[in-house]
């Protein structure tokens, strides 16, 4: 699974850096290094919904506070299936 996180201006100001750090941590904690790849992206053109995180075709709006819930719901479920 490839997770793309926007690191453009708008998302940066909304906490992209913390989202990246938390996701990196969660991937390691759950020993998913071989299954999940984290990638950055410059502006996805969805700035109003930042921080933008993309999995496949879906773009999610994630904040540093909601990263864990997002990870549980969207990443863990998909990977464990």
């Amino acid at each position: 699974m490839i997770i793309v996180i926007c690191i453009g201006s708008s998302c940066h100001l909304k906490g992209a850096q913390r989202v990246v750090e938390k996701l990196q941590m969660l991937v390691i904690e759950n020993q998913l290094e071989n299954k999940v790849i984290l990638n950055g992206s410059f502006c996805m053109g969805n700035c109003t919904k930042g921080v933008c995180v993309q999995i496949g075709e879906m773009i999610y709006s994630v904040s540093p506070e909601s990263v864990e819930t997002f990870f549980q719901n969207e990443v863990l479920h998909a990977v464990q299936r």
Partner: protein
Amino acid sequence: MNDLCTDIGYISLAKYGEQLCGDHVDIIHKDDGTTVVVLADGLGSGVKACILSTLTSKIISSMINNGMSIEECNATIAATLPVCSERQLAYSTFTVFHSLLQSEEVEIIQFDNPFVILLREGEFFEFPKTKIEIQEKIIYCSRIPVQEGDIFILMSDGAVHAGVGKILNFGWKREDIIQYMKPLSVVGYTAKTLTRILIDECSRLYEEKPRDDTTVCTIRIRKREPMNLLIGPPSNKDDDIKMMSLFFSKAGKHIICGGTTAKIASEYLQKPVIPSFNYIDPAIPPVGHIEGVDLVTEGVITINRVLQYAQNYLTDNDFFADWNFKKDAASLISCMLFEEATDINFFVGKAVNPAHQNPDLPITFSIKMQLIDELVLCLEQMGKRIKVSYF
């Protein structure tokens, strides 16, 4: 046509207790690449000295710049300077540095300041002087060929007197200054940095309380280095290709700022944008990479930081250690613009990013334009030649 140019930096310290410095440096850059620098030291200190040195340096720089001879300059100064009521004298020393880089030569005219120091390839280089007498003044003239890397140090006598009777018995001699600067001259520091290092040492010897106005002006002969910076997509989408082709056709390094802008460049070059997560400074978004572009960064936040560094560079420059060594996007741009570049072309796209027009975000369109304007102003003060094109 050769591609040498001058990199000039100067700093003055006012005598302790005075608000005005009695030394003055005046610089004139001409479009044909010649430069005139005049360092004058007025008699006494404070307001009187300041007026004398300002008049002297302005008169000489404008006259030399217009092709007049030193005899004529001297006559004008003698006729113009106000006479000091205490001393019945109208007096200001001066050092003139006139670069004629078309012929790879410089002309140096010296009157009563400490002799100019020339460091070439890390060694002191003694250049010949011709002594002439004009209206009882002894003036030394030289005309010498220069080469890349030459460093000229112009000083007022405050520099060689640093520490007299305090830390050093007889002050810091010219010979000591040469020994101090020799190893530093080969490091590759800019004129501004070399000047700062020398003036800091003078200030230290004076125990931070200069007993005379002290001025150092360093001139480094270097090669011209063009640099190109692209920020923001064009206001009309149809101009994408035009903007990109103009940008990439320029000689020199290429910097792209802005996520959307990077995407347009990536489409133009048909090479992917590869972002990274390398947060060296958590406040600055990480750099990206596109094959064929020297540096790819985020836009407004990064440029805002570069502007802070630029404004600081022109004042006390105490962020120097940050941007000169760190590898975050803003530091990298700062190094490339402040140190490497001599000629900078800005390509500014005026498209409004609708997402940025959110009152919660401090990155509106007008702020971007303002950032660029202020940055250009700072870079011009650093002596860079700037061209800005809007799309």
